[in-house]
């Protein structure tokens, strides 16, 4: 009978593993420091009354001391809004909300003015938000002013008009002309209706309240779920501007729900695990980075901390990593969402399962000892069956007082991922060189893998290398680490890695060099040996140099593969490169200067010969004109030619073509004119001679 019951329980536990194991942490000091950073004054005041309220409320919930500058800035904006007659109900609402925390004094006259304007707003309200601000404002001022006689004139009428915005699926609309409905609006509506109930001068019709309870249950039917067991509300994304997001929507619904539960007398029957799921949703966010998100999270958790529906209790671990060798104990804490103490309860460890295996629980169900001083539930010694590795522990929380069951909700079972580490014993480690055929040991060395080794071996391609060792867990069981590698590195930095296989506790690798010759690229020489044994659960993972081995391998044949190029030190890529020296074209061999000068002289010779020949021929200047005018022209002609030749010399020496052409064109024109005059005069003279 007991056996079948146990078997059934085991089956139940196995099925429940299908859900992912995750733990949620309650609010801690990291939240408090983040709040101080996020909610800061911008030039001495917050941007709006809404933000003022959010900052004050967050500080109040987290128990952060009120800073004087924050309070004075808040009081300033509150009194400004309260005093002004043109403040809208929304401004008054947030001012009064902030004032409920800041507790600044409001004048009697001002509060009277507020009451009358809010009453007028209630009667003139047409949309959900109008009702929300005006009714909410009246509720707040009732608590804050000395005048306790604030009632809603026609509470039932107002109730019905707000209820008119509800829809059949539990959601609410914002106004009669806007058909869009949302869960966020539902939360606001519930808060407003709770306010109406509290302001009513006489009892409201109970049927109204019970229909509202039905609406709440229908709303909770539309709750959505994530894989890790968290629940939340979300609206359909229709209009980007109006979309609120799951965080603010869920927060609004929770606010409405708890406000409503606070004013009604009966019970709102909501399953406790839905509340627990909502609590996990808010805790699962961690520390938000945005002030608004932070406020929504903290405000919702404050609603969950104390409400009339059910208060969730959160189980958390101080550390999810436990060392078997150091004999750590498992410490569990159960608190409310904001970290306050839980009522008397016991925590039981009902099962522990190795991750990734569907075997039965490794531990018997046992109770954890409660330490009054620290508020922790402690399991001092891990059971023998828990060895190194990763596990899922299943806890169950049982409340000691039966009345607490109505107030608190703990959840059936909480799964927590636990990682157990420990020192792994490495024994009998040795390295040997064996003769291939006979298997006889040629040389053997014992290794101390925990310390330094400098083994020196030598082998040729006909032999084998064997490395073996034993691993066992602190509890004495076999252990297979994630990494067991033997690396051989040649002098030329070529590396080879081999996995060390195991059978049970014994780990061994045998390198048969005959088969590895080609893999080693026929490189003989000194190889450094390095052993790596590592695992996440191993506290003494090691990477040790064992020593070196001189390998004598045969010569590489023609077609053998070359070893891959070893990567150069990557930083040398950015170092300076080899300097490039430009090799200029070797200048042509020039002849010796004397030879060139000699030939220059030789070139002048024909000119001299020409001049001498001219003299021998009897050259004379008889035809040179004697009369002054033609003589001038003749002289100018010769001067002109000489000038052109001079210009050519300058052209060769330093002028460029364009300058030369410019001058030559001028000289040419001059020369043509002068030459024409001279030659025509000569022609006339010779014609005269001929005719004469």
């Amino acid at each position, binding site marked *: 009978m007991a056996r079948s019951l146990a078997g059934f329980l085991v089956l139940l536990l196995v099925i429940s593993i299908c859900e992912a194991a995750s733990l949620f942490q309650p609010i801690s000091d990291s939240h408090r420091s983040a709040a101080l950073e996020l909610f800061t004054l911008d030039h001495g005041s917050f941007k709006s009354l809404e933000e003022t309220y959010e900052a004050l409320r967050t500080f109040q919930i987290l128990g952060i001391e009120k800073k004087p500058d924050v309070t004075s800035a808040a009081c300033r904006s509150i009194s400004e809004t309260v005093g002004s007659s043109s403040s809208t109900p929304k401004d008054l609402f947030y001012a009064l909300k902030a004032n409920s925390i800041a507790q600044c004094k409001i004048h009697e006259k001002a509060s009277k003015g507020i009451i009358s304007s809010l009453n007028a707003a209630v009667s003139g309200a047409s949309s959900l938000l109008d009702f929300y601000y005006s009714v909410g404002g009246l509720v707040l001022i009732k608590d804050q002013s000395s005048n306790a006689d604030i009632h809603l004139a026609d509470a039932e009428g107002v109730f019905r008009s707000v209820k008119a915005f509800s829809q059949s699926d539990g959601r609410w609309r914002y106004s009669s002309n806007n058909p869009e409905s949302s869960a966020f609006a539902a939360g606001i509506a519930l808060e407003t209706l709770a306010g109406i109930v509290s302001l009513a001068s006489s009892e409201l019709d109970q049927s109204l309240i019970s229909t509202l309870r039905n609406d709440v249950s229908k709303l909770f039917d539309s709750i959505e779920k994530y894989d890790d067991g968290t629940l939340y509300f979300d609206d359909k994304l229709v209009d980007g501007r109006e979309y609120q997001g799951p965080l603010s929507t869920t927060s609004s619904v929770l606010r409405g729900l708890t406000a409503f539960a606070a004013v009604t007398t009966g019970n709102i029957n909501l399953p406790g695990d839905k509340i627990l799921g909502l609590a996990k949703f808010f805790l699962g966010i961690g520390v938000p980075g945005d002030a608004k998100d932070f406020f929504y999270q903290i405000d919702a958790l404050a609603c969950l901390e104390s409400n009339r529906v059910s208060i969730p209790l959160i189980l958390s671990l101080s550390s999810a990593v436990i060392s078997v060798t150091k004999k750590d104990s498992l410490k569990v804490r159960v608190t409310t969402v904001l970290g306050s103490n839980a009522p008397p309860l016991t925590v039981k460890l009902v099962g522990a399962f190795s991750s990734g295996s569907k075997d039965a629980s490794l531990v018997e169900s046992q109770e954890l000892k409660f330490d009054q001083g620290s508020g922790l539930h402690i399991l001092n010694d891990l059971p023998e069956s828990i060895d190194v590795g990763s596990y899922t522990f299943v806890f169950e929380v049982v409340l000691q007082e039966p009345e607490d069951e109505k107030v608190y909700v703990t959840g059936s079972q909480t799964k927590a991922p636990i990682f157990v580490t420990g020192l792994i014993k490495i024994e009998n480690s040795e390295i040997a060189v064996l003769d291939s055929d006979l298997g006889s040991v040629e040389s053997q060395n014992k290794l101390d893998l925990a310390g330094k080794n400098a083994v020196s071996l030598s082998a040729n391609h006909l032999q084998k290398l064997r490395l073996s060792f034993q691993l066992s867990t602190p509890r004495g069981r076999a252990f297979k680490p994630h990494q067991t590698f033997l690396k051989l590195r040649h002098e030329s930095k070529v590396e080879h890695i081999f996995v060390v296989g195991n059978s049970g506790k014994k780990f061994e690798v045998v390198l048969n060099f005959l088969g590895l010759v080609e893999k080693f690229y026929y490189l003989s020489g000194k190889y450094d040996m390095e052993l790596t044994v590592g695992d996440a659960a191993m506290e003494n993972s090691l990477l040790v140099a064992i020593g070196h081995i001189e390998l004598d391998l045969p010569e590489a044949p023609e077609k053998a593969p070359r070893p891959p190029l070893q990567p150069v030190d990557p930083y040398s890529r950015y170092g300076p490169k080899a300097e490039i020296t430009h090799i200029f074209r070797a200048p*042509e*061999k*020039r*002849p010796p200067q004397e*030879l*060139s000068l000699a*030939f220059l002289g*030789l*070139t002048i*010779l*024909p*000119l001299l*010969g*020409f001049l001498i*020949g*001219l003299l021998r*021929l*009897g*050259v004379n200047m008889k035809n040179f004109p004697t009369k002054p005018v033609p003589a001038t022209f003749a002289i100018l002609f010769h001067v002109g*030619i000489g000038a*052109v*030749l001079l210009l*050519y010399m300058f*052209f*060769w020496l330093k002028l460029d*073509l364009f300058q*030369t052409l410019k001058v*030559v064109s001028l000289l*040419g024109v001059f*020369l*043509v004119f002068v*030459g*024409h005059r001279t*030659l*025509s005069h*000569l*022609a006339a003279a010779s014609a005269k001679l001929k005719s004469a």
Partner: protein
Amino acid sequence: MAREKSSKGNAQALFHSLRSAYAATPVNLKIIDLYVGFAVFTALIQVVYMASVGSFPFNSFLSGVLSCVGTAVLAVCLRIQVNKENKEFKDLPPERAFADFVLCNLVLHLVIMNFLG
């Protein structure tokens, strides 16, 4: 032997007759011939220089040689035009031919100077 002697004698006789015929040419033509000879000699010397030391600044060599050859060609043209026995250029006054010669030489030498480098 006799043929050799006769051929030798023939060559000598030919040379002498050429020489005497040449003496009959007018002086201005002889001047032009001398000028042509001078230009060709200068060109030859330049070629010998290039042959001995290599043609490294080839453009300079070309411009030098072409200057000589060019001016020789222009002088030959001048000779043709000035020669009174040449019926083709009977109407062309020699001064005009000379003016052409000067102008063409100036243009030639501008180009040569540009190419000399």
